[in-house]
């Protein structure tokens, strides 16, 4: 049986990475772990391949990249732009257009909302192909409504495999361009009143006993991009007590512009700038979710999340994304125990006294 063109997230597991990329596979995995994730589907790598194989597209792409000097940055940019243009101008086959549009329609029905706003994101297949992961990092389109718009942005995500940087990287590493593939996720847009990121360890100290949450009003973009100083919370992972809270002055947030139906930055009303953007119960629930996700994966993770305040509390927190934490996991933390000590209590007491380690 041929591989499917689209897949629902709930049909994906971590074994689905070659088919739907890391991002979408992880969303499926989270759903199976019982985590609340906004529903959606993925255009599979098979879909991508068939799209690229249709008509003369593959040939045209090859043509534009043939004899390209990747060290000539201007030429590289020009080639990238022209390849992406070709991809984005390529019509879908009827079968594929149908598959995507029908899935989108079903998703809208499922969420009881006509022309459901969705986020369209590329989902890279392999971490060891950084060309793909560049694309994955770059392309996220928020608040996309209607089948035509969805189809157009799925195409844009596919073309993101051909950014100048990705092309250059593959050329330098000797990967063939047509060996890599990409998947695209179409996910119900969480109408987030507050969103942000969460680490299941302390990013500054590597302390695994805490969960750190950064949050701001609106979509998570303002936090991820670093455009604002978000509110910052440190939660005890073991007991879920909130240990620290730093409420920042949040001047802007992203949400959908009702006129243009696009996500854009708005100014936070003055009286809300210094208000805690997540209430304590939400912080605790979020941390609890983070703890479950870490437990499921067996290692620290970083997570994107959102709160939809129109929904009743206790059911309004969503996980949009979870990936393995990379900084501290790669670093080998030195043992806390002093080198060469025999490990008895008194050895430690003496070395501790000598070091004069301060407390408190």
């Amino acid at each position, binding site marked *: 049986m041929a591989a499917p063109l689209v897949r629902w997230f709930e049909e994906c597991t971590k074994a689905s990475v070659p088919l739907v990329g890391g991002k979408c596979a992880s969303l499926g995995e989270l759903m199976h772990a019982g985590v609340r994730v906004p529903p959606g589907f993925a255009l599979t790598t098979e879909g991508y391949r068939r799209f690229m194989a249709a008509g003369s597209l593959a040939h045209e792409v090859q043509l534009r990249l043939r004899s390209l000097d990747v060290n000539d940055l201007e030429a590289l940019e020009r080639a990238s732009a022209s390849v992406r243009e070709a991809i984005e101008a390529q019509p879908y086959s009827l079968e594929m257009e149908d598959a995507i549009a029908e899935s989108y329609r079903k998703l809208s029905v499922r969420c009881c909302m006509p022309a459901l706003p969705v986020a369209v994101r590329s989902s890279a297949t392999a971490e060891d192909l950084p060309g793909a992961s560049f694309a994955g990092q770059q392309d996220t389109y928020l608040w996309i409504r209607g089948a035509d718009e969805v189809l157009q942005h799925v195409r844009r995500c596919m073309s993101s495999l051909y950014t100048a940087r990705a092309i250059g990287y593959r050329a330098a590493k000797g990967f063939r361009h047509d060996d890599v593939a990409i998947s695209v996720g179409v996910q119900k847009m969480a109408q987030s009143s507050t969103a942000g990121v969460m680490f299941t360890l*302390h990013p500054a*100290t590597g*302390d*695994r*006993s*805490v969960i750190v949450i950064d949050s701001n009003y609106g979509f998570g973009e303002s936090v991820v991009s670093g455009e604002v100083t978000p509110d910052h919370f*440190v939660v*005890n*992972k*073991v*007991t879920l*007590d*909130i*240990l*620290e809270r730093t409420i920042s002055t949040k001047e802007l947030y992203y949400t959908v512009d009702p006129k243009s139906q696009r996500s854009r930055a708005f100014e936070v009303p003055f009286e809300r700038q210094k208000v805690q953007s997540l209430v304590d119960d939400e912080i605790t629930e979020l941390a609890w979710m983070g703890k479950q996700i870490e437990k499921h994966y067996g290692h620290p993770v970083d997570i994107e999340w959102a709160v939809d305040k129109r929904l009743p509390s206790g059911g309004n927190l969503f996980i949009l994304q979870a990936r393995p934490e990379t900084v501290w996991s790669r670093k080998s*933390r030195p*043992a*806390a*125990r002093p080198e060469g000590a025999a*490990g*008895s*209590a*008194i050895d*430690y*007491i*003496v070395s*501790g*006294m*000598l070091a*004069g*380690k*301060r*407390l*408190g």
Partner: protein
Amino acid sequence: MKFPVPHDVKAKTIPGTEGWERMYPYQYQFVTDDPVRNQYEKETFWFYDGLHYPEPLYPFDTIWDEAWYLALSQYNNRIFQVPPVRGVDHRIINGYVYISPVPVKDPEEVGRRVPNFMERAGFYFKNWDALEAKWKKKMEATIRELEALDIPRLPELEDMSVVTEALGESKGFHLIKAYDDLINLGIKCWQYHFEFLNLGYAAYVFFLDFTQKLFPNIPLQRVTQMISGIDVIMYQSDEELKKLARKAIELGVVEAVTFSKEWTEVEQALQKLPKGKEWLAALERVRNPWFHISTGTGWYHHDRSWNDNMNVPLSGIQTYVEKVQKGLSIERPMQKVRDERDRITAEYRALIDKPEDRKQFDELLGCAKTVFPYVENHLFYVEHWFHSIFWNKMREVAAIMKEHGMIADIEDIWYLRRDEIKQALWDVVTAWATGVTPRGTKTWPAEIEWRKGVMQKFREWKAPPAIGTAPEVIQEPFTIVLWGVTNKSLADWAAVQEVKDPATITELKGFAGSPGVTKGRARVCRTVDEIRQLQEGEILVAPTTSPSWAPAFAKIGACVTDVGGVMSHAAIVCREYGMPAVVGTGHATKIIKTGMMLRVDGSTGGVSIAR
């Protein structure tokens, strides 16, 4: 951080107290006539030991300060040789004790001390249980000796047996000797007090230290929670009250036990009932030693024991009877505490990445759990059992002084230093032997009257939490765990000092002593007598608490103290009861008034006052 210069503080003598220095040992004074000592005192950081002394010291009560000045320092410095710290130095201003740990500054000297410490402290850690058993024997023998100590009155004519048995000694000599023996027993008891204590705290402190290295963001109280739920005899007295409460219900004598707050009335009523007698007999069986519980910390003579003031245990019994009758539990939820302890310990342990770290964690946790019972139990033996008897023996000495006109009242004796009492007793016995009037009958009563006035003025004085030069970092571990002194607490104390009007303060910071958040009305209790006024669910605000405050914890919703670290009594008990505590706030009893609405966050150490 800026704190007042000790000598400047001292120089502002409270009018009418000029010459107060003679009430305390001379070496406790901050000096200006010795440039070297003066310089040392200025450069040193001194903090007020409010943990032990919530009020100014009486001249006689200074005995325990001298006793631990010696004992703590000798064990640290001369017996075990803790490598980086010598002893703890002491001073007094206006009756308030200031202390300062003395560091070993030369790294080479520190290095030379290491092998001694390893060998000596190592021996104690290795043989802890056996040595602790020995300690109990020594301690109990000392208490028995104290109980047996006879303080003889001076007879008009010595007994005939002195002649027939050719004793060759008079009651005058015996009185002097008995006083010396009494003082020496007290000092000896305090020698034992510190035999294990520094090592016990070291085991705690470095378990804390290691866990904080593993988990830099771990709250201190979570570490101490891992050593909670261990049964110790310090809680036995409170358990006895609960047993008596249950027994009163079982025997059907609740009416008689609860109709009055006056023990004498209750006792009379019970005497009239057959079952009442049975209950009184049950009570009698536990009074020695379990009612040798001080109603304070045991450090002051006026902290009378339950045996001296039966209204206090009676009030505890009545609280428990009421609770049981309402169908409420009076058990400390030990199983719950243990389950939670084991759950969090296992979760933290599972987060340790390296097997060698996990092993070290296990070793240190095991060690901390081994030392825990001693760290709690020594209080029962020394501060409660021994002290309760000791103060009453001193009252016997005082009765003789009074009989001979040296003091007007038994309770006046505390206004004399212990060496002054020795002198005065010589005055008494020589005058008695000679058949003349002691010189002191004219001098001491006047002096005591003056000292009473001085003490009153001292009580009204506000002792600054810290004086001298604060170091860059506070490193001495005992200071942190026991007294709750850290850079952060100092900064918080300094900040409150800068606020001109305490009526504007709405936030207090202390140590997160026991987790949880609660809101309620404040009840400020400065002494244990005041805990009777506590209403169900109120927040207890106290200078510090001690085991005889235990019944209070069955009523309150949370606790806030001025002084103490995460290992202080209030923090430990609140963790056992699973209620929030913020300890070591520095000023809570001065800022908070009874009736104020408080929000106590025992997880972060914050207290908010609704104004």
